[in-house]
């Protein structure tokens, strides 16, 4: 054990965090700088957006989405927030509070949609009514409503807080099953097409440990408790496996994902193109869809007429794998 405390690689001040993948330690100021630079590099490398674009950030109240919103504003981008009340018990009540306080304290514009108030259902009810796993009902609702809010609000792009760990875990899962179509679409930016807005993930070069540290340093209060539905899901298992690999070879996680983007994605380009083929418009809401009525409108129809289901029911009945 060293008696000498570790020092920042840049300025030699006492460090607040060690980052084995960079083989270095950083003070608070230079960790924030590292995060901003990594975000800037991602935005530039994948030509995500420019300072003239109007961005809509999907904020959940968790560390990643609040951090990306904060970093974008700090970097001079024009970014509003969109919060979706999912109706997942206490978790949703808490997370909404964090988002509102963050936006209010910085004077940022926040759009709020509540599934129960605005569409007559919530995630647990939709899961039961449509016999989907909750995360699938949730994801469908999020994608549809973020897309719609972006198009209707005239935003140039939807921004999400997906980080390196999220993307590496999804990549790991898709690779284990060789899901070629999913692999072909797993890009940090998806261009606008067929009535869908552009979608960007500026945090893909940053780990969740780095994002949590960023929030602590910047004094961003976020919901630390997880969505109760996530507990034990497959995605978390992949993250755990990757972190075990990372422990043995620091940098492995970033190499797995970033080298996929550089070396493998170009080879899958034809799948990316074909995955966004023929699209018409939904008879209910006008959203792009391959059928007559889009999956979201079908979900709303079934869920809004269903008796409300408390989140505990979804947690008890182990239907969420």
């Amino acid at each position, binding site marked *: 054990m060293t008696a000498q*405390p570790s020092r920042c690689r840049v300025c030699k001040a006492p460090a607040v*965090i060690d980052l084995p993948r960079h083989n270095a330690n950083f003070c608070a100021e230079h960790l924030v700088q590292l995060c901003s630079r990594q975000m800037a590099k991602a935005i530039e490398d994948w030509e995500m957006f420019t300072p003239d674009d109007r961005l809509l950030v999907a904020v959940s109240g968790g560390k990643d989405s609040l951090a990306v919103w904060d970093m974008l504003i700090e970097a001079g981008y024009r970014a509003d927030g969109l919060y979706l009340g999912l109706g997942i018990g206490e978790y949703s009540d808490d997370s909404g509070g964090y988002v509102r306080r963050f936006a209010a304290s910085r004077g940022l514009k926040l759009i709020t949609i509540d599934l129960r108030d605005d569409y007559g259902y919530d995630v647990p009810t939709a899961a039961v009514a449509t016999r989907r796993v909750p995360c699938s009902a949730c994801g469908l609702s999020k994608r549809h409503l973020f897309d719609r809010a972006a198009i209707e609000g005239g935003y140039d792009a939807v921004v999400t807080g997906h980080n390196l760990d999220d993307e590496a875990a999804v990549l790991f899962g898709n690779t284990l099953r060789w899901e070629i179509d999913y692999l072909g679409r797993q890009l940090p930016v998806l261009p606008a097409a067929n009535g869908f807005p552009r979608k960007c993930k500026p945090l893909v070069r940053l780990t*969740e440990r780095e994002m949590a540290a960023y929030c*602590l340093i910047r004094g961003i209060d976020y919901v630390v408790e997880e969505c109760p539905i996530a507990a034990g899901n497959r995605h978390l298992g992949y*993250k755990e496996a990757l972190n075990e690999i990372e422990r043995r070879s620091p940098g492995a996680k970033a190499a797995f994902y970033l080298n996929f983007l550089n070396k493998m994605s170009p080879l899958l380009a034809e799948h990316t193109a074909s995955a966004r083929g023929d699209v018409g418009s939904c008879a209910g809401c006008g959203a792009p869809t391959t059928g007559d009525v889009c999956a979201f409108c079908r979900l709303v129809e079934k869920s809004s007429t269903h008796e409300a289901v408390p989140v505990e029911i979804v947690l008890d009945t182990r239907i969420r794998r």
Partner: protein
Amino acid sequence: MKVLLRNPKREVELAGGRSVNRLLDDLELSREAHLIIRNGTLVPGDARLEDEDVIEVRPVVSGGST
């Protein structure tokens, strides 16, 4: 030292005199998945924790699959 843990949220009393990394190893927690906050301040893996410290072990992994 007082140690705040999550999932579930609880507080335990542990002996100080070990490093952050040592504490995480002793608790069998991944270094890549946690941060340690000592008396309100983020500290790196080789920081030493003492009996009088108040420690928060903060998990950083989020679970959504979309």
